[in-house]
């Protein structure tokens, strides 16, 4: 019996729909809380090709919600582990692994090779980047975001429909991650599964796609509502005319006289301004440690305070720095305003 018998039985799928699924290509940006359940259902449905994009590694704290990963996977590349697991689930699906972040440089080219983009990211910068690149590549994308017990879901740039910038024209510094707020594993599970459902409807051309609408879900209150959204043509036109609009979110740090060392990657936001803020990503520490002052106190930070702690260990043990202090809690705790 066919692997897809139970879905082919549906009039919305049928043998024709299954062929559509088989020839479809879906790019999943971020294989985390949203991306894990989404890719499992897309793989099960027999989508022809799935792009798995994530530059992150599996952390023990991911396992409660990122259901593709298991304890022995901790420390390994999320995209690679996801491919291994999903291949076992369905050997007919082709997977392409991207162990790199989506950037202004690569976004349009990569997205052009797929039919639909599923947003599994956890930051505003990448959401705007997906949005702008999808406008230029003329592809629909399925958006979801969560905050504690709430989720937002929509399909953007579908058949000339509204885009993310039509709802939220400007990016914000208030980038609050699950790491910072906490989340129950089921919430991204629900949202990621709904995203997969939208992708399947887009591919099949069946049912009603959640375009022009923003669905709001509150898991704790067991409530949901749908807000109608309209296109802001000028927002879309701006991107078509000028290309991807980079999101540079700058901020001031509380103490402008203090030396700071930012060990985050260059694409991480917000970017603090100031003459006494050094930016050296973790991977460049051994080649650039000489730039760090060693005769006065330097506060080292990252997004959460975890990587900066490791950076201090490296700088202390390998290069003899004794003037470094960790910013526990990460950049949000030292931003002014």
């Amino acid at each position, binding site marked *: 019996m066919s692997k897809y018998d139970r879905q082919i039985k549906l009039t919305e799928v049928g043998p024709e729909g299954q062929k559509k699924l088989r020839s479809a290509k879906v790019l999943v940006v971020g294989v985390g809380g949203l991306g894990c359940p989404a890719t499992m259902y897309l793989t099960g449905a027999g989508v022809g090709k799935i792009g798995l994009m994530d530059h992150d590694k599996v952390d023990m704290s991911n396992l409660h919600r990122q259901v593709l990963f298991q304890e022995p996977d901790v420390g390994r590349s999320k995209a690679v582990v996801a491919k291994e697991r999903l291949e076992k689930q369905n050997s007919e699906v082709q997977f392409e692994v991207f162990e790199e972040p989506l950037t202004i440089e690569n976004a349009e080219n990569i997205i052009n090779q797929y039919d639909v983009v599923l947003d599994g990211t956890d930051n505003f910068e990448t959401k705007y980047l997906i949005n702008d690149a999808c406008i230029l590549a003329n592809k629909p994308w399925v958006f979801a975001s969560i905050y504690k017990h709430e989720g937002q879901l929509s399909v953007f740039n579908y058949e000339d429909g509204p885009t993310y910038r039509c*709802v939220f024209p400007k990016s*914000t510094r208030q980038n609050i991650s699950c790491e910072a707020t906490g989340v129950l594993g089921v919430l991204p599970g629900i949202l990621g599964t709904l995203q997969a459902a939208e992708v399947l409807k887009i591919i099949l051309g069946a049912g009603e796609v959640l375009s022009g609408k923003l669905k709001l879900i509150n898991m704790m*209150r067991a409530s949901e509502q749908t807000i109608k959204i309209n296109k802001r043509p000028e927002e879309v036109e701006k991107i078509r005319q000028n290309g991807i609009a980079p999101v540079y979110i700058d901020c001031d740090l509380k103490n402008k006289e203090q030396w700071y060392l930012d060990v985050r990657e260059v694409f991480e936001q917000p970017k603090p301004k100031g003459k006494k803020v050094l930016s050296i990503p973790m991977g460049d520490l051994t080649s650039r440690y000489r730039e760090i002052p060693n005769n006065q106190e330097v506060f080292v930070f990252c997004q959460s305070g975890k990587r900066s702690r490791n950076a201090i260990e490296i700088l202390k043990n390998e290069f003899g720095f004794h003037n470094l202090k960790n910013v526990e809690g990460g950049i949000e705790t030292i931003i002014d305003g």
Partner: protein
Amino acid sequence: MKVTVKYFGLVAEAAEKSEEVLELNGELTAMELKSQCLNSLAIADKESVQIAVNQNLDDTITLKDGDEVALLPPFAGG
């Protein structure tokens, strides 16, 4: 006139409620009501909060009795 205001995400958290009914005097646009509601709340980026009136995203509408206003901050978690 009375309008119902629904709060979402960190706005609900800052307001310490998810919904309230407000008694308004005089004409007020959705944008003016938003400023009034968010004024006393500790929210860093108030501009990013979007407004829906009766489940339609629009901040230019002049409110009328019985309207339901939703204040929607962007989320980024995943």
